C-alpha cells in the first residue's frame, strides 16, 4: 500500500514548540485519514528548526465504497415531500427507490452508493485544512499576502511544502494542492549554510538520506543522541564529566539541523562564583553545558557548545567567539555575586515595604512579618529554636532582592543560603533560606531541619490563609497562586516529619494576623476541608484508599493531620483482615437496618438500651462487648495507639455476628424492637471511636 510523505519547510521554528508540533501534525493527519475510512499502518513525525515532517505508511489507495440507505416519505405522500426526497437523494424518479414494508404504512427508501475516492484526492483536500487550522501556540502573518484578511498564519513564514504519495516500487505522485500561493511539490532544501540548494525527494527513505547528505539530521532523537554522546566524549577525553541536562539537551537539539559539539573554556578566576550561578549563566544565556571534575564534583572552567555548522577552520572561530561571549557574562555574574555580598540580608528588608505581594494582602514586608510571627508560634511544636526560627523567617526571602536572583530567578533560596552563610548566620538559619521553599512538588525533598520546617510551614500557611481570606481559592484547573501545591507541601512537611500541628488553630492564627478582615470561624474549617481533599488525592496517588480519609474526617474535629494519616493507616490494615471485613459488614448491616426502621418510624433510635429488656444471651453479650470495646478503644485512641484501637474493635465482631445470627431485630413486642434498634445504634456509636464506618466503601 502507498505511503505519504509530507514536509512543511519554514523559517526557524522555536525549539520549545517543535516536539509538540510534530506530534500534532501526526495526530491531525492520521485522525483525518481514519475518519475518511483510510486506515493506515503506521506514522512517524519529525521536526528540525526549519521543517516539520511526517510519513504515514500503508494507506489504502482508495477509500472503501460506502452504501447508505435513506428513508423517504410514505407511499402516497404529497408531491412536495416526494420532490424533496428526490432532490435530496439525487434519484431521477421514484422508480429508482425501493419500497419498505411497515405496519404503519409502507415508505420509499433510496439506496445511495457512494464510490470511494482515490486516497490521494482525499489527502489533497485534507492537508490545506490541517495546515490552516494547525494549533501553534503563537502564529503570525508575513509578506505581501498579509495585506489581505484570511492569509495563512504559520509559526514563522512557510516557504515550501513537499507532499508525495505512492508505492515503494514506483515514482510517487505529488499530492496536488496549494495554500496561500505555495504549491505542494517534491522539492525541499538542505542545511541553511552548508547545503542550501534544492533537493528533489520521493519518499521517506530517500528524503531522510538526501537530507543527511545535505547536512540535515531529520530525527530530533538522533540529534540528541549525537549531542549527548559527543559532549560526554569531549569531557571524558579530558578526564572530566559532562553535567547532563535533559531540558537543555531538548532545547539545543531544536536549535540545530547539523549538531557539531565543541569545547571551550573560561578563566579559572570565575570558579570563585558558586557553581549554580556559573551553570545558570552558561546554560540560560548561552545554551551551553557545563563540565565537572568527577573527583571533586565541582565545576571546571570548561563548557560544551553545540554549533550548527562544520566550519573550515574546525570551529576555532566559533569556539573563540563563544568564549568571548561567555567571559563578560561570567564577569557580570561575578560582579552581581560580589555586589550582593556587600549588602547584608537584613539591610535589604526595608525595600520590601515598596513591593506589593498582592494588592489585597499588602506588601512583602507585611507578609514577612506575618511569616515570622507564625513561624515563632509553630517553632515549639516542631522542636525548633524560637529565636533562630524568627531570624530565619526574617531573612528567608531577602535574596529575592539580590542581583543574582534578579538575573536567575531559579536560584532563589539557594543564593539566600550562600549569602547568609557568608555573613556568618547560623547554619540552620541559612539553610532555611533554601529549604523553606520546599517541597515544590510531589517528588521534591521535604526539609527536616526544625527551623526550616517551621518557616516552610509558616510561609505556606500564610499563603493559604491569605488567599482564602480574599476568596481566591483554586477552582477546577485554575490555581494561579499554587495553593494546592502549598497545602500538599504542608501535608508532607507534617506527615513526613511526624509533626503535631492542629490545623484549625494554626489557620485561625494565620487568618487573624492578616490586615484584611477574615471570617476566623468559618474559614479554618473550609481550609481543613481543602486539606482533606489534598490528602485524599495524595493517598489515592500512593494507591491507598481515599474513602478511609472521609471515614476519619467525618468523625469531626480531626484537624491533626498526622493522627488522621495514622488512623487511616491503621484502619486500612484492619479492614484488610477478616475481623475488619466482617465487622465492617456487620456494622453496615446494622446501619442499613437502622436506616430502614428510622425511616419507617420517622424517628431515630439514639439513647442507651435498657438492659432489663434484653431477652436473649446474644443481646446481653453484644451489649457487654460494646461496653468493653468502647472503653478499650477510647483508652487506645487517647494514647493515639490506633492499632490497639482496631484490635479492640475486632473483639466486637463475634458478638455482632452472633447477634445477627440469632436475634430477630423486629420483634413483635414494640418495646423489645425499640431496644434492639437502640443496641444496633450502639454498634455504630462504638465504631465511631476510630472511624465513621458508614463512609467506608465496600
Amino acid at each position, binding site marked *: 500500500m502507498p505511503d505519504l510523505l509530507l514536509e512543511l519547510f519554514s*523559517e*526557524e521554528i*522555536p*525549539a*520549545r514548540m517543535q516536539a509538540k508540533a510534530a506530534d500534532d501534525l501526526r495526530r491531525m493527519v492520521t485522525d483525518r485519514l481514519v475518519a475518511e475510512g483510510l486506515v493506515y499502518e503506521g506514522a512517524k513525525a519529525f521536526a528540525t*528548526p526549519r521543517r516539520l515532517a511526517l510519513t504515514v505508511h500503508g494507506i489504502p489507495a482508495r477509500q472503501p465504497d460506502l452504501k447508505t440507505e435513506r428513508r423517504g416519505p410514505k407511499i402516497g405522500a404529497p408531491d412536495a415531500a416526494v420532490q424533496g426526497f428526490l432532490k435530496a437523494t439525487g434519484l431521477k424518479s421514484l422508480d429508482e427507490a425501493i419500497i419498505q414494508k411497515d405496519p404503519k404504512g409502507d415508505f420509499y427508501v433510496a439506496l445511495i452508493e457512494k464510490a470511494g475516492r482515490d486516497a490521494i484526492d482525499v489527502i489533497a483536500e485534507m492537508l490545506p485544512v490541517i495546515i490552516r487550522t494547525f494549533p501553534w501556540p*503563537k*502564529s*503570525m*502573518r*508575513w*509578506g*505581501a*499576502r*498579509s*495585506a*489581505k*484578511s484570511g492569509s495563512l498564519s504559520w*509559526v*514563522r*513564514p512557510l*516557504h515550501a511544502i513537499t507532499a508525495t504519495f505512492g508505492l515503494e516500487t514506483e515514482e510517487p505522485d505529488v499530492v496536488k494542492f496549494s495554500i496561500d500561493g505555495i504549491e505542494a511539490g517534491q522539492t525541499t532544501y538542505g542545511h541553511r*549554510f552548508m547545503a542550501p540548494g534544492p533537493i528533489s525527494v520521493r519518499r521517506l527513505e530517500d528524503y531522510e538520506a538526501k537530507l543527511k547528505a545535505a547536512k540535515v539530521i531529520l530525527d530530533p532523537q538522533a540529534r540528541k543522541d549525537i549531542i549527548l554522546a559527543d559532549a560526554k566524549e569531549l569531557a571524558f577525553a579530558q578526564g572530566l564529566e559532562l553535567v547532563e541536562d535533559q531540558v537543555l539537551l531538548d532545547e539545543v537539539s531544536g*536549535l*540545530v539541523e547539523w549538531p557539531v559539539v565543541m569545547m571551550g573554556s573560561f578563566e579559572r578566576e570565575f570558579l570563585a562564583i558558586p557553581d549554580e550561578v556559573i551553570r545558570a549563566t552558561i546554560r540560560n544565556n*548561552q*545554551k*551551553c553545558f557545563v563540565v565537572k571534575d568527577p573527583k571533586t564534583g565541582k565545576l571546571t572552567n570548561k563548557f560544551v*557548545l553545540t*554549533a*550548527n*555548522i562544520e*566550519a*573550515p*577552520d574546525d570551529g576555532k*572561530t*566559533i569556539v*573563540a*567567539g*563563544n568564549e*568571548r*561571549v*561567555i*567571559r*563578560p557574562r561570567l564577569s557580570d555574574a561575578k560582579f552581581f555575586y560580589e555586589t550582593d555580598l556587600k549588602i547584608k540580608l537584613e539591610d535589604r528588608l526595608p525595600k520590601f515595604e*515598596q*513591593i*506589593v505581594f498582592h494588592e489585597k494582602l499588602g506588601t512583602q514586608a507585611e507578609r514577612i512579618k506575618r511569616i515570622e510571627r507564625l513561624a515563632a508560634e509553630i517553632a515549639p511544636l516542631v522542636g525548633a529554636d524560637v529565636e533562630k526560627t524568627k531570624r530565619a523567617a526574617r531573612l528567608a526571602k531577602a535574596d529575592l532582592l539580590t542581583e543574582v536572583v534578579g538575573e536567575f530567578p531559579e536560584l532563589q533560596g539557594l543564593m539566600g543560603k550562600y549569602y547568609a552563610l557568608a555573613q556568618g548566620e547560623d547554619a540552620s538559619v541559612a539553610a532555611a533560606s533554601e529549604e523553606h521553599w520546599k517541597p515544590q512538588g510531589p517528588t521534591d525533598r521535604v526539609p527536616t531541619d526544625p527551623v526550616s520546617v517551621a518557616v516552610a510551614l509558616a510561609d505556606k500557611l500564610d499563603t493559604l490563609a491569605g488567599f482564602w481570606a480574599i476568596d481566591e481559592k483554586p477552582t477546577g484547573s485554575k490555581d494561579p497562586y499554587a495553593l494546592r501545591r502549598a497545602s500538599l507541601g504542608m501535608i508532607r512537611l507534617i506527615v513526613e516529619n511526624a509533626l503535631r500541628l492542629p490545623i484549625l488553630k494554626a489557620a485561625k492564627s494565620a487568618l487573624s494576623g492578616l490586615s484584611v478582615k477574615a471570617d476566623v470561624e468559618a474559614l479554618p474549617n473550609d481550609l481543613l476541608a481543602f486539606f482533606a481533599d489534598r490528602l485524599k488525592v495524595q493517598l489515592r496517588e500512593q494507591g491507598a484508599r481515599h474513602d478511609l480519609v472521609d471515614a476519619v474526617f467525618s468523625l469531626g474535629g480531626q484537624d491533626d493531620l498526622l493522627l488522621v494519616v495514622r488512623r487511616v493507616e491503621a484502619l486500612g490494615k484492619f479492614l484488610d483482615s477478616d475481623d475488619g471485613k466482617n465487622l465492617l459488614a456487620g456494622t453496615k448491616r446494622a446501619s442499613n437496618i437502622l436506616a430502614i426502621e428510622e425511616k419507617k418510624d420517622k424517628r431515630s433510635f439514639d439513647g442507651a438500651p435498657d438492659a432489663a429488656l434484653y431477652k436473649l444471651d446474644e443481646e446481653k453479650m453484644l451489649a457487654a462487648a460494646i461496653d468493653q470495646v468502647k472503653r478499650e478503644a477510647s483508652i487506645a485512641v487517647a494514647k493515639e495507639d490506633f492499632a490497639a484501637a482496631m484490635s479492640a474493635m475486632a473483639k466486637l465482631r463475634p458478638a455482632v455476628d452472633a447477634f445477627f445470627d440469632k436475634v430477630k431485630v423486629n420483634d413483635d413486642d414494640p418495646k423489645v424492637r425499640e431496644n434492639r434498634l437502640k443496641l444496633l445504634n450502639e454498634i455504630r456509636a462504638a465504631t465511631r471511636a476510630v472511624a465513621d464506618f458508614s463512609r467506608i466503601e465496600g
Partner: protein
Amino acid sequence: MDALPDHMRPERSFQGFILALQRFWAEQGCVILQPYDMEMGAGTFHPATTLRALGPKPWNAAYVQPSRRPKDGRYGENPNRLQHYYQFQVIMKPSPPNLQELYLKSLAAIGIDSAIHDIRFVEDDWESPTLGAWGLGWECWCDGMEVSQFTYFQQVAGVECAPVAGELTYGLERLAMYVQGVDRVYDLNFNGREGAEKVTYGDVFLQAEQEYSRHNFEYADTAMLFEQFRMAEEACRKYLAAGWRDGGNQKEHLMALPAYDQCIKASHVFNLLDARGVISVTERQSYIARVRDLAKACGEAWIHTETGRAA
C-alpha cells in the same frame, strides 16, 4: 569592496561599519534616512518604523538611530553597557520572502562570514508595551552572541499590520566590537586610522557616558520631568484632537506626526523618571499605559493620513 581604503573597512572602523550597512541596504532599495531628531529608547520609535509600518503602502527604509536608555548608564565603567548607543534599523513592508537571506548577506557585508561563524535564529517574541506593538521573530546569534533582532510586526500602535513589515535591528557597538575584536566598547576604532590620527569610541563618547550617567541617576530634574510628561501628554492629545477633518466620504487626520513627536517625548521622559527611581512599581504600569494610549491614538490618526491610508 576592493576599492575601499583600509580605514573604511567595516572590520577596521566603526564609521566604515555603519557605512557598509547603509550601502548594503541602499542596494536593496531602502531609503537611507538620517536619525530622527528626538531622544528615544530604540530605533523602533522612529516614525519611519512605528507609523510607516501601518497602512498598506510599501515602505523600505534603513537608518541609524541613537538610542537612549537612561537606566543602562554605568558612568563609563562597564565594558559594554551604555546609556546612549546606536541602533541600525531596517524596515521592509511588506516583508520580502528572502528577508532572512538579505540579513545574512548584510552580515557578510560587514565581515561576518556565515561559513565560519555559527549564525542562529533563536526564538524571541518581541513586544513593546509602550508602543502597543508585538511581533514574532528571533534574536540572531553569531557564535553565541546576540547581534540583531529580527521581527515580523503583527501589530503596531494597536493597529494590525496589513501587510506585515519585517524589522531588523542591529546593535552597532556590539557587532562592531565583535568584528574589530575588542572587549571594551570604548576601545572601538571609530575612524579606522592608526597612531595619532586614530579616534576611538571612548574619545567620542566616554565623557558623555560619565556625564549623562550622573544626570540620569542623580541630577535629572524630576519636578521638571513630571511636568514635561504631563505637558507632552496634553499636547499630544491636543494635536490629535485638532487634526481630525471630515474629508468628503472619509475621516482624515492632518497632524499625526506632530502628535506622535509628543508621544516619543513622553516615553523618553518616563524613562528618565524611571532611571531616577521616582516611579513606584504600581505607578510604572500606569505610566506605560498612558504612553501606550498616546501611541495607539497616534496610530489611529496615522492610518487616516495621506501616507497611512489605503488610497
